[in-house]
């Protein structure tokens, strides 16, 4: 499989231009990775709409949980997928249908065929990355935990948003 590579400027642009994210597979359990990501992204000023049929209608971190992408009554810019790869194609179909601009698959999740379909429909696709970690990496925050951000700069870091 071809190694995935996304230039920093591309990730930075997505993270700075996006405002509303639907998180498929958001968990209400505080120690699940999706909860971590949702909470962090909210702190950074994104509106994150949780999608999880198991807890449909409940409140999660101040937002109503929806059962599916298509049942969200307002527009979504980015779809962040915390689901097994086999579920990705159906979600991508929904993302195309609701007019999302970006499909983002979480760390370890990759589906090249669905990605191609989304790209052909004009969407931008990121796979096998976490928006929380990428935000932390490009803002320098990830380095606070001793993680190698691979960002080298002689300039003060610019705010992503």
């Amino acid at each position, binding site marked *: 499989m071809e190694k995935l590579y996304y230039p920093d400027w591309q990730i930075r642009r997505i993270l700075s231009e996006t405002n509303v994210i639907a998180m498929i597979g958001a968990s209400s359990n505080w*120690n699940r990775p999706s909860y971590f990501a949702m*909470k*962090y992204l909210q702190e950074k000023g994104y509106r994150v709409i949780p999608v999880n049929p198991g807890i449909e209608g409940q409140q999660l971190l101040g937002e109503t949980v929806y059962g599916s992408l298509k049942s969200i009554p307002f527009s979504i810019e980015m779809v962040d997928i915390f689901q097994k790869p086999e579920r990705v194609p159906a979600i991508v179909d929904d993302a195309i249908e609701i007019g999302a601009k970006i499909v983002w698959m979480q760390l370890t999740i990759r589906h090249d065929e669905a990605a191609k379909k989304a790209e052909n429909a004009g969407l931008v696709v990121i796979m096998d990355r976490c928006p929380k970690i990428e935000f932390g990496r490009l803002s320098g925050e*990830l380095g606070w*935990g*001793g993680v*190698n951000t691979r960002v*080298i700069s002689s*300039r003060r870091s610019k705010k992503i948003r």
Partner: protein
Amino acid sequence: MKNKSKQAKPPGFETLAIHAGASPDPTTGARNVPIYNSTAYVFDDVDHAASLFNLQTFGYLYSRIGNPTVSALEEKVAALENGRAAVATASGHAAQLLAMYILMEPGANFVSSPNLYGGSITQFTHTFKKFGWECRFADTANLDSFKNSIDKDTKAIFTEVLANPGGIVIDIEPLSKIAKSEGIPLIVDNTTASPYLCQPFEWGADIIIHSMTKYLGGHGNAMGGIVVESGKFDWAQNDKFPSLTQPDPAYHNLTFYETFGDFGFSTKGRAVALRDLGPTLSPTNASLISTGIETLPLRMERHVENAMIVSEFLNNHSGVEWVSYAGLKNSPYYELAKKYLPKGPGALFTFGLLGGYEAGIKLVESTELISHLANLGDTRSLIIHPASTTHRQLTDEQRLDAGAGAEVIRISVGLESVNDIIADLEQALDKAGV
């Protein structure tokens, strides 16, 4: 915005040594990373505090767990080793303790090369035993012995690559294959080589340890250690590493590997091991070490150049029975050194005096420029008689195994004018009567 864009060439080692982890301070614009002498950091509100304690957001909380000066250094070393993340500690020994604390359980064991710094042998044999951890020493001349020592409770293979006290290069690539086939990580202590001379992750190591007290800091002025993870080891491939793959009761049932992925090992090291064992690096020492690292490539080049000249001088001296430096063609490790240490096999080596124990003691007591002390990796040249000092606590057999027999002298060749180092050795050898 296609993802087919060409990947930028990664920066060179020299650039990373100076810049990695060390962008200008976003608030003040300070170009060098300041020494943040602060034990704690304010919370915006209780929710922010909760997010920090739960590790849901990145940020500083309390300097036992993280400090901006220290994390700049951690990122720098992670970058130099081409690793994913790192956790700094108060000393090299603390780094070994921290790494093992994450992997081991009472009743577990790890298999180690016996060619180690004497202090590590003591730590592994006696002190770790009190935690219920067993260290099994294998035979580096027979790599099968590593495989044969592994059982269901084995959690890691540990080795130095350029072994202290001297001249021995360990064949780490086959060791990494053994570790891989057993589903356990290979831990490499890269202290004596430094990341400039050897890149253990390229040869399949999974975790790298340093005593930063040595070449990384490089000036004999600060203690420090570090644990670097490659980010490539799959901790969930078996059930050997519950502290990474199972909910952790020490952290309200967080599962570190699942939550933090390729830096889960380091996050565990920081959030649990540093927090609860407490061997934190001070920001002042972190700053001294970071400054040292900026010139690591230059220093290592000269260390190697001087070591080569000094080893040849000793090799030709009539009072010296043998010289064990992997840069010499007569060394049995010459070929391995070319493979693993292509820029030179370090500047720490041993030699044997014809006069044995007595002559050895006389020699180390007679130098005037070279310092008689227990350290290595300083700008200054250092000399020691391991059998009576660093390796004193060991049995005769362990001493021989470790390459620290009675006649052995260890030298850490510094950065003085090489002619002055040689002149000092010459007069001291004279006084030693050899």
